[in-house]
């Protein structure tokens, strides 16, 4: 597989109206891919992942999103997702709300090719009343009542990872969360990586490979592609940017100005990184704790 540009991959594989799985559970959040989707003006997307953070909020502010299938939307440890909140209160966004466990189970069902999975969650409280797709089933062995959650196969997944070989075998280590379940449930995968390494390095540690080449639709080399989230062993989380986003996203005008400067106003990730304060730049790549040879 020849690596392609992220712009080309998004043009080719993210269609208006598609259901897009957004990888990255705090770690390796695919900000570069999300920003490219905003730049290209994709519309009416359904976005899905368990814990949705500020990248999802930016995609909503960018006008790309019609529907969310999520377990949580916020700015972790800091507060609410303001564009999300405004869109929901204005009625311009459809929300299908699960829990982080039950949504992971939906991806898992999709990944392993079964139409549903049973769970003991979503049995009580107000959440089940607002989920149209829930069913109750009786265990054929014990007679116990369980909740059935339907499998979910997104059209395309966005995943950022440490590295891949030229064939597209993607290696990711550190926090996974729901990333691999969601990606492998998806029909297509756009993978962005910090670096391409020789195949023999991948084959020396095949246990680090999470997406095998035959499942990866497009491979793009995008160093810094997860900023302001982090890449284990490469660069750390830029917590200050998350706090700053809480402030600037409270007013729609400020948020528009942010998108104009840091998304629409840059051609690609390299240009985005060039606009950051110098103190934010913890690359070039290092292999400190958590690094792999």
């Amino acid at each position, binding site marked *: 597989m020849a690596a392609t540009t992220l712009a080309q991959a998004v043009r080719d594989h993210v269609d208006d109206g598609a259901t897009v799985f957004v990888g990255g559970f705090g770690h390796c959040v695919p900000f570069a891919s999300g920003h490219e989707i905003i730049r290209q003006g994709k519309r009416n997307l359904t976005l899905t992942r368990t814990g949705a953070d500020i990248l999802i909020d930016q995609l909503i502010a960018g006008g790309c999103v019609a529907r969310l299938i999520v377990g949580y939307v916020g700015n*972790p440890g800091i507060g609410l997702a303001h564009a*999300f909140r405004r869109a929901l209160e204005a009625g311009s966004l459809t929300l299908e709300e699960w829990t*982080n466990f039950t949504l*992971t189970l939906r991806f898992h069902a999709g990944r392993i090719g079964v139409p549903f999975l049973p769970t003991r969650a979503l049995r*009580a409280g*107000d*959440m089940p009343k607002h989920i149209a797709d829930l069913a109750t089933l009786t265990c054929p062995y014990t007679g116990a009542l369980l909740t059935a959650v339907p499998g979910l196969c997104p059209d395309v997944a966005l995943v950022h990872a440490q590295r891949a070989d030229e064939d597209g075998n993607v290696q990711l280590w550190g926090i996974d969360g729901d990333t691999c379940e969601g990606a492998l449930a998806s029909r297509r995968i756009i993978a962005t990586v910090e670096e391409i390494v020789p195949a023999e390095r991948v084959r020396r540690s095949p246990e680090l490979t999470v997406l095998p080449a035959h499942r990866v639709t497009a491979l793009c080399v995008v160093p810094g592609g997860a900023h302001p989230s982090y890449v*284990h062993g490469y660069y750390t*989380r830029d*917590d200050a940017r998350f706090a700053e986003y809480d402030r600037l996203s409270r007013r729609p005008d400020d948020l528009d100005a942010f998108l104009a400067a840091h998304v629409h106003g840059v051609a690609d990730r390299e240009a985005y990184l060039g606009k950051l304060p110098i103190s934010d730049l913890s690359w070039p790549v290092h292999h400190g704790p958590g690094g792999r040879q």
Partner: protein
Amino acid sequence: MTADIESRNLALAASLELSDDETCFVGIGLPSLAAMLAKRTHAPRAHLIFESGAIGADPRVPPLSTGSPCIAENAAMLGDCLDVFGELQAGRIDLGLLSAAQVDRFGNLNSTVIGDYEAPRLRLVGSGGAHDIASLANRFVILMPHEPRRLVPKVDFVTSPGHLLVGDERAAAGLRGGPSALITGRGRFSFRCGEMALVEVFAPFSVDEALEGLTWPVPVDEAVMRRSGFAPAAIDAYARLERLPAGTG
């Protein structure tokens, strides 16, 4: 100053809910702080588990997110969401530590919406893993600052089931556990027939102060305990943790 005392009481008292060698599913914010305190004091062999998949976590600074670098670094194992929620569903997690925007007299938690679900006055972040932890942990403990507008007779939305309404509604839904205690900065409440009752107050607060602003008649234990303070080593551990900036580390 009172706010500082309440914050410290809350973290220290909540940490005592976790025993050594127990497995504990930890949420972000106050729950992380309490779990980290327990690890640094009376429960060094407690196994902290975060929904991002970290098992045997021992973060050096309070985390902002369950996926933060400080959760990954120093953990015993990094699995994925299925690993940790699977352990939870299988009944292998002793304790969950949870906070929320609102909690009610039956220990039901709301992190979804203030006002009506379809026409929210304030839309919140949603369940995350909270519903799953409340439903599936063998027991859970609620951490809540003493803010009367957040301690209510009935939550606007039951995101995470506590005892639901008085009775055996929870068991009827096939759920194990339930809330075993609610900790504020002023006191400890346990649940009797599903309803919270004050069983302990923390100095310098009186019973009246522990119930100040609550709008329903909260039962008070006849032999309510009065905790004069916490162990000096625990107070030191709190002071060291509290000085650290939350985040990356």
